[in-house]
């Protein structure tokens, strides 16, 4: 068949499709919901970006203030405030008030998915002390997380397939019901070409809406060099997903005797893909890679803390034996400072040395779970779309692991930089402030991202090819009355 008659067929099918007000209403509804989800996402990511920016500005300001105070005190223009002397490392650096806010910048498609996490951006508070002692608390009603966010991930994973099925469940079954299918078969174009034309029209309409919303979202979030690549990946996944559902619809239409039966069968597929398979996959993944036991984590943490407190003298002696130059040379004038410097500080270091592997193990468990889940996504286009959207929006556990690893590296440099000044109670100088380490936000690598996306893409491609092949075979054998 030459291109020209096929284009004419497409134009004709488009006219028929557009003539049904229900189809246009459904497309309008999808566009509206997708736009609403995109708006929510853009707004949410704007807030998150500004929270990260505010935290960074406040941090920079606090350190600039300390530096200024130091200069003024040294010049004799200012008296140091109690507990806030910028020369005193114990007050200026050891305190949790001096912790640095560490965060990755949001990825370009952050607006696409709110992920499974809370709305707050992930900002780690890192300083001299251990950062493993408190959990990420939230005041939010957890019911909101149970409901789930109204984001584009939700639209493409669950609503888009439903709309696709509603628009295509009777793509052939209706002709059969109305008795015009044999007439179609008697035309010069094949039945497969007619059905393909109908599906192509629906594909273009649905993909057009999602591509438009995706582009608007990307522009509204601020176009950066990575945006083009990420958006292409996301839209390609959306296209494969729509194609897979349309292929499935055509295959079911080929044998279903009525449009009601076709609708029921397709609905069952949707329930399987959107609800049952992800839930079952979750159960299997939990069995293969159980989530960390936080109760044991807490017990372990407290047992270690108690043990270290009981061995305070031993730990202090070991610390100063290892670093004899850090031993304080002057007597302390109050009863609080020796506790912070000679007890708490060495204990924090000892704590992290022994407890550090535990949170890293938890990170590894999360990553392993995510890998299993990506493999399970082969079974469900909905799960694939959810996972790839979450990943592009920056919610992959690998990214969280990368942030924690970067934070660990920063903390190590931070501790080394201030170690002697804290432990030996040596006054801080301008050089300590000016040369203090800065966070290096090294995100997960492009290769790592590509490998994660590749697994999900392979699943979607398999679905698309499988359903297309099934549809082509089924349509060839389709009974028309």
């Amino acid at each position: 068949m030459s291109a020209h008659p096929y284009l004419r067929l497409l134009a004709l099918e488009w006219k028929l499709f557009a003539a049904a007000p229900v189809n246009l209403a459904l497309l309008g509804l999808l566009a509206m919901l997708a736009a609403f989800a995109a708006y929510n996402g853009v707004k949410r990511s704007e807030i998150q970006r500004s929270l990260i920016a505010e935290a960074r500005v406040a941090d920079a300001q606090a350190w600039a203030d300390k530096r200024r105070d130091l200069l003024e005190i040294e010049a004799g223009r200012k008296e140091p405030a109690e507990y806030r002397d910028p020369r005193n490392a114990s007050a200026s650096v050891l305190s949790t008030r001096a912790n640095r806010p560490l965060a990755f910048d949001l990825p370009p498609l952050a607006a696409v998915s709110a992920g499974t996490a809370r709305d707050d951006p992930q900002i780690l508070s890192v300083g001299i002390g251990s950062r493993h002692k408190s959990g990420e608390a939230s005041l939010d009603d957890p019911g909101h997380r149970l409901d789930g966010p109204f984001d584009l991930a939700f639209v493409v994973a669950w609503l888009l397939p439903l709309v696709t099925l509603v628009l295509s469940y009777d793509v052939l079954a209706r002709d059969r019901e109305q008795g015009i299918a044999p007439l179609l078969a008697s035309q010069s174009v094949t039945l497969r070409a007619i059905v393909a034309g109908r599906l192509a029209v629906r594909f273009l309409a649905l993909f057009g809406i999602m591509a438009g919303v995706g582009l608007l979202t990307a522009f509204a979030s601020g176009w950066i060099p990575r945006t083009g690549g990420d958006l292409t990946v996301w839209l390609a996944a959306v296209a494969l997903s729509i194609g897979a559902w349309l292929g499935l619809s055509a295959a079911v239409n080929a044998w279903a005797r009525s449009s009601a039966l076709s609708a029921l069968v397709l609905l069952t597929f949707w329930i399987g893909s959107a609800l049952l398979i992800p839930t079952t996959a979750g159960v299997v993944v939990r069995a293969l890679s159980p989530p960390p036991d936080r109760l044991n984590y807490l017990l372990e943490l407290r047992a270690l803390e108690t043990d270290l407190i009981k061995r305070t003298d031993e730990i202090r002696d070991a610390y100063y034996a290892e670093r004899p130059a850090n031993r304080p040379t002057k007597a302390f004038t109050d009863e609080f400072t020796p506790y912070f410097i000679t007890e708490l500080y060495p204990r924090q270091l000892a704590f992290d040395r022994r407890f550090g592997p535990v949170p890293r193990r938890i990170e590894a468990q999360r990553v392993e779970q995510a890998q299993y889940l990506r493999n399970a996504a082969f079974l469900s286009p909905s799960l694939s779309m959810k996972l790839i959207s979450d990943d592009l929006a920056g919610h992959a556990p690998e990214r969280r692991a990368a942030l924690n690893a970067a934070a660990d590296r920063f903390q190590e440099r931070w501790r080394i930089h201030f170690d002697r000044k804290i432990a030996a109670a040596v006054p801080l100088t301008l050089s300590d402030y000016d040369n203090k380490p800065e966070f290096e936000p090294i995100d997960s690598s492009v290769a790592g991202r590509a490998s994660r996306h590749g697994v999900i893409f392979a699943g979607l491609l398999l679905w698309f090819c499988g359903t297309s092949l099934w549809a082509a075979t089924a349509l060839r054998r389709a009974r028309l009355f």
Partner: protein
Amino acid sequence: MPTEPGGGRLVLVVARGELQQQLRDGLLRLAGLLMLVLLVASALAGWSQYSRDLVEGKRFTAEVRAQWLDQGEKHPHRAAHFGSYVVKPEMTLALFEPGLKPFAGRTLWLEAHSRSAFSYAPADDDVSAAAGLGLSSGAAMLQLLGGLLVLVTAALTVVREREAGTLRQILAQGIEPRAWLAGKYLGVAAALALAFAPLALGLTMVLVVLAPEPARVDVAARVGLSTLGNAFYFLALLGVGLTLSTIARSSRTALVLALGFWVTSGVLAPRVASHLATSLEPVPTVEAFQTAIGEDFEKGYDGEPGWDTRLDQLEARTLERYQVRGLDDLPVGFSGLRMRAMDGWTNQVADRRYAELEQVYESQARWRSAVAILAPFIAARNFSQGMAGMDWPHYRHFANRAELYRRSWVERLNQVLEQSLRGETWEMDAGRETWASVPEFRYVTPSVGWALAQQAGAFLILLGWAVGGAALLFVSGARLKP
């Protein structure tokens, strides 16, 4: 010539006929069986999780207490910062309705100065927890998939008769349409009840028998109310589904309409409700909330002086009370007095901010209830969670009791400072005897009456929907056309 049965008898005849037809329907049998298998599998998985959590929770509580007692000699205030953990207990209903459990932590950390929020939500660590559409529990499966089964079954009931031409014959015989529809309603309801009753009975027995002796009556009442709530929900969907079936001209249209209602009510509405609630009444971040409390603490509010002024006043009052010239001369430990004053003021400041936060929660709940008026799925889920003791009010009740315990516990340690120290000294050590003087935390889950009061709105919405669904069908019956 046989006469047509009239009134109530007609309803019963039609109901019996519909029941037989539904039971013969292979599709319903298959769907019902599948639902049953899924629900039983889900309940078993829930049981396994619940049993594990119960054992772990008890072991954790015992070990935390042992760690508290064996923490060694240290300053009481450092012991207060070492803190303690409390675990929210769960009723047996949680095995079928875990409610907010995946997204709320089970534990609260109690330490000096500040009230803590729930942390370590299982979903934070479990990547697979949010893979689906919240279908992780038996109750969610029952309400979402069971609701779809009810809607689809009902939506096909009348329209199939219309497509087969039997509706025309029935109406031509002069049968009262509303009585005929009432029969259909009862028949489908009986078929669905037969499908769900074995599970409901079995589950009720398991939940009540597994519950500890003193809580059995309460658990039985909660299970009964939960079943009633779900029954209202299904009756509402039955009424809606049958109404759609009377309106639709074809099975195709009826299915699309039913599916549209299900998606809107069960999939879209909860997210919209949640989005509305959090957008219109946002809860502050923990950091912002703590900063606000910190500022109130430092600077005071509404004419209440801030901490520095309070400390000066405390010093002056104490010197006057003990008739000494300086704090060093005091016969009691001033650091204990200072800590008590500090914690008292912190509590006052925090109570004010938490009262505001409670207002936000209430406003959010009102927004969600408003959407639930249009979407019965939300009301059914909220009610079910409430009866299982796994909704936000129950979590807050636990957190409030834990906070009262925290205050009494910190107060006890501050008393030790006051009684053991003299003057303005700070350093001292206490030991096991002091730690043992802090009582263990005991928590009693609120009664079914309290739970019902929290979810009265959801219950009324479900009742309204059940009655409204039937009324809608009654009204549409007057216009029933072949």
